[in-house]
């Protein structure tokens, strides 16, 4: 017998070969059969399996035939091995699927017509595709549980619809660690519940209806608002903070009905915080600026946008002629897209020739790219991560989930210390490996000092939580008085945000262009009112009314972030596209076209107005953005060096 009985040699590439229904692929070792089948375009239905959670194999929906195995195997928990041959088409697999669906439907209520999940329910879909034609179980014998239990103002639980896939309880175990929802009782009486039915308090509840494969956990804020087939879905970026969670904007009848998560493993890992998720529908009720307005001592009048732009240019030219270019300042905001920022800083620097420009009211002395070196996903590769204070997680809540994942699934040591910690932490850190240092942008000074100390013994990478959806992009592209695009040096440093306002109130600055200032907090309203009273010329381009827009000599409506195209950069430098999900609330053109027209009126003709053309220009000027492309990280030389 010369038959070769040695097993096939392990391939050099670390890949293993698998055959599913006659199709073959080579996949990474450890890949689960469900994932391998997805690569091959073969559908294996699952309920309990979830890409972000460990397999539990409880629903038994994914049972498939694996050659040389005596029993059907759960594809969701079976890693591929070399030469594995899987069949999903055999009669026994089909019968099992039908059987499991019959079991799952056994005690499931017949309330699909009034179930919010209808149309995007895996139980409906799989029952249609794989399920039995009719029920053999007497309807009178169904086990009943509580229906429509409000777990919070966001979440409603229907215990009867639950198929006990354990996703929500594992979510609280593995993803947030908060243990709010648990399984109670056992056998057919098992149910999902909180301790004594107490309300949920998590800041991440909105993810529950999304991971629930059926209509057991539904979103009370979206309840009975729409059927999924009526929704128009647009890819977007959550506008609430600088974390840059990817979302789907679901709209209907020109209204945002909900934000749904859109998995980006490098950023959000498919989880949204409730603050971000709730911000979508709340936009429908925001008061908007809809028409251009000119205002002078005699009163205000609505005008066409070209009149408004011409008037803005004329009045700014007059100010420059009377008081010189440094009597003009330009303020953007952390809510502007990169393309808007690009034109705005160019407008300030070249058309108006003023050094006074900024995007926030806080000053950023000595700003450099090294404070943005650590990527979100890189947190998982650190040996230890130091979080200064609770501001980072308060500003960007989803960061908490990434830290928890790094801690529990990757063994990263997470040290949360008081924000102003100056004491040495060196002795408490692992000797080897990368150290992540996360701080809020209000705490840059301490972070810099601590990083300086740690870098003597460790490799340190910093992450700084910026403000707004594009606070990072505004910095990268030079919407700063002390730093040009790509953190280049400037000839003459201008006034920073708050100083611009104070100088305006004091009459030192007489002409001000503000784009998106309505996002500033109410605490600066008195200052803004003084500014508005003192300025000769105030050009405001904004979406929402505020103290400045009400006093603007030229007011031009802007497009909200859901109404325009462009790119925004999250706190780790990831450049991501935003797309129009709704028609604009105004008939005026987008900010970029207005800025281009304003520049032309000021004598700088030929600036692009379309965001795609502007983007082409800015990536040529800022190579880090060219390398980032769409979805990559903008990494600057200094950061790479650090």
């Amino acid at each position, binding site marked *: 017998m010369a038959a070769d009985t040695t097993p096939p040699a392990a391939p050099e590439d670390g890949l293993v070969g698998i055959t599913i229904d006659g199709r073959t692929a080579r996949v990474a070792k450890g890949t689960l059969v469900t994932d391998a089948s997805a690569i091959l375009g073969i559908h294996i239905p699952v309920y309990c399996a979830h890409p972000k959670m460990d*397999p*539990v*194999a*409880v*629903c*038994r*929906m994914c*049972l498939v035939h694996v050659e040389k195995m005596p*029993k*059907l195997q759960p594809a969701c*928990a079976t890693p591929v091995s070399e030469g594995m041959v899987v069949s999903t088409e055999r009669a026994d697999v089909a*019968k*099992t699927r*039908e*059987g*499991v669906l*019959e*079991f*799952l439907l*056994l*005690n499931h209520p017949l309330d699909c017509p009034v179930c919010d999940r209808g149309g995007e329910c895996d139980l409906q879909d799989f029952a249609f595709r794989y399920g039995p034609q009719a029920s*053999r*179980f*007497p309807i009178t*014998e169904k*086990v009943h549980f509580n229906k429509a239990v409000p777990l919070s103002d966001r979440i409603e639980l229907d215990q009867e619809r639950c*198929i*006990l896939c354990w996703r929500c309880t594992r979510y609280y175990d593995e993803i947030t660690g908060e243990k709010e929802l648990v*399984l109670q*009782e*056992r*056998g*057919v*009486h*098992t149910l999902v519940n909180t301790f004594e039915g107490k309300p949920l308090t998590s800041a991440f509840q909105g993810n529950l209806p999304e991971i629930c494969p059926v209509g057991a956990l539904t979103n009370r804020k979206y309840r009975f608002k729409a059927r999924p087939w009526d929704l128009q879905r647009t890819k977007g970026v959550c506008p609430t903070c600088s974390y840059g969670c990817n979302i789907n904007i679901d709209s209907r009848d020109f209204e945002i009905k909900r934000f749904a998560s859109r998995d980006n493993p490098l950023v959000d890992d498919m989880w949204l915080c409730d603050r971000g998720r709730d911000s979508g529908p709340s936009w429908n009720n925001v008061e908007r600026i809809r028409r251009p307005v000119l205002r002078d001592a005699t009163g205000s009048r609505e005008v066409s946008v070209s009149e408004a732009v011409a008037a803005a240019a004329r009045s700014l030219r007059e100010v420059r002629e009377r008081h010189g270019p440094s009597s003009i300042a330009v303020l953007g905001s952390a809510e502007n897209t990169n393309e808007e920022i690009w034109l705005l800083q160019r407008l300030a620097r070249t058309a108006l020739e003023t050094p006074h420009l900024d995007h926030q009211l806080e000053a950023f002395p000595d700003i450099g790219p090294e404070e943005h070196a650590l990527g979100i996903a890189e947190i998982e590769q650190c040996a230890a991560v130091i979080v200064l204070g609770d501001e980072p997680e308060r500003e960007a809540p989803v960061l908490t989930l990434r830290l928890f994942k790094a801690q529990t699934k990757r063994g990263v040591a997470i040290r949360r210390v008081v924000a102003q910690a100056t004491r040495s932490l060196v002795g408490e850190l692992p000797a080897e490996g990368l150290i992540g240092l996360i701080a809020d942008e209000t705490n840059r000074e301490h972070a810099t000092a601590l990083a300086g100390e740690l870098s003597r013994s460790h490799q340190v990478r910093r992450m700084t939580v910026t403000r707004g959806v594009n606070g990072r992009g505004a910095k990268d592209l030079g919407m700063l008085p002390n730093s040009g695009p790509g953190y280049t040096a400037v000839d003459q440093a201008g006034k920073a945000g708050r100083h611009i306002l104070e100088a305006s109130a004091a009459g030192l600055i007489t002409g001000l262009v503000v784009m998106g200032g309505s996002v500033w907090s109410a605490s600066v309203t008195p200052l803004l009112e003084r500014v508005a009273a003192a300025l000769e010329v105030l050009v405001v381009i904004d979406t929402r009314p505020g103290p400045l827009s009400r006093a603007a000599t030229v007011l031009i409506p802007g497009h909200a972030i859901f109404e325009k195209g462009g790119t925004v950069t999250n706190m780790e430098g990831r450049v991501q596209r935003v797309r129009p999900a709704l028609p604009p609330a105004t008939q005026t053109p987008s900010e970029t076209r207005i800025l281009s027209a304003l520049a032309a009126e000021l004598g700088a003709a030929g600036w692009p107005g379309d965001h795609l053309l502007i983007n082409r220009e800015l990536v040529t000027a800022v190579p880090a953005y060219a390398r980032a492309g769409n979805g990559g990280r903008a990494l600057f030389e200094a950061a790479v060096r650090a």
Partner: protein
Amino acid sequence: MGEHKLLTEHFGTEGLQTLAVYERVGGYQGLREALSRFTPETLIDEVKASGLRGRGGAGFPTGTKWGFLPKDVFPRYLCCNADESEPGCFKDRALIDENPHQLIEGLLIAAYALQVNTAFIYIRGEYHDQRLLLERCVEEARAAGHIGANVLGSGFSCDVIVHGGAGAYICGEETALIDSLEGYRGQPRLKPPFPALKGLYGKPTVVNNVETLSNLPHIVQRGGAWFKQLGTEKSAGTRLFCCSGHINRPGTYEIAMGTPIRELLEEECGGIWKDRSIKAFQPGGGSMQVLLPEHLDLPLDMDAVAQAGSSLGAGAMVFMDETTCMVNVSMRLVDFYHHESCGKCAPCREGTYFESDLMHRLEAGHLTLEELHTLADICDNMNGKCFCPLGDTATWFVMSAFKAFRDEFEAHCGAGACPVRTASAQLVTA
């Protein structure tokens, strides 16, 4: 052949539950010898040589199971599975009630072989008095230096913790037992990893049945070779059989493996009661398939019974006389699994509920023939599809009974009452 007293040799001795009496009849000699004559490695080899197979139901060779532990990974844990809850099974209770120190000695021997410093006895919640007894015995043994630091001056240290359950059959499944012992809902874990690699607290763990461990003092004292010659080629030693049902002398009998079942029934159990004849019996507890009178001549040998389509399981023999309604018995076993299903996987959680509903309507004579075939079909949809063996075994008895007594099952359909009960009532009055 026939009755052979090894584990039960001293049963009934006054005060055997105390350390003094147990030591007077030779107790803890096995432990002393294990510690003095064996290294952990040679001890595992001795157990391998004895051919001892697990007495919990699956019959896996004990020494082989021990050999799966990865080398040099510590701490390791040992759990004695005293969660005996199989319908018809009560041998572990007898072993604990009558000779608790024998179990503790066996546990310590295994702990030494496996180099375990913390061993647990997981005892079902219903065995309340047995738990108290074990706790008392552990304290007694600890005071005598048999448990704790430096066991009997050997340098080996082992603590024993008696842990009471709280009512869940599924905790007899070894990974569910581990989950329960860790303080979770006692639900089976995904395998692999197997407990030998990642068990209690994520550490290498061995789970052994009460009877398995109680054998160890005897194997150590008399040698693996001696043990192996008891019983049959592949089923070494003796086994405790729990006999119940329609027999004259229910009880636990220690029998050498290989003895014909008929001998157990006629000689130990005193035959079927009331001079009736046997209709059927279940050889391995509630999980196992029904056997018929023609199988009485099978030897008590795991493989021989397996060939007949059933299993010796945990050694529980339930005998049923001619008046028994097999539908009623099936209904009760189905209800048992329905009650004990942990609810983890859909086929078991919902399937046992469906089965139970059908069986109750069948027993009451309200099922149609078509629905009877539905019963067979859902059993097929459960068997082999469940997360752990509980859901699979929930179908075994009812399906085997359906096969062997098809007429009886079909006679129930649409009868409006149990036809067997009606017939046997006539029999009694006649």
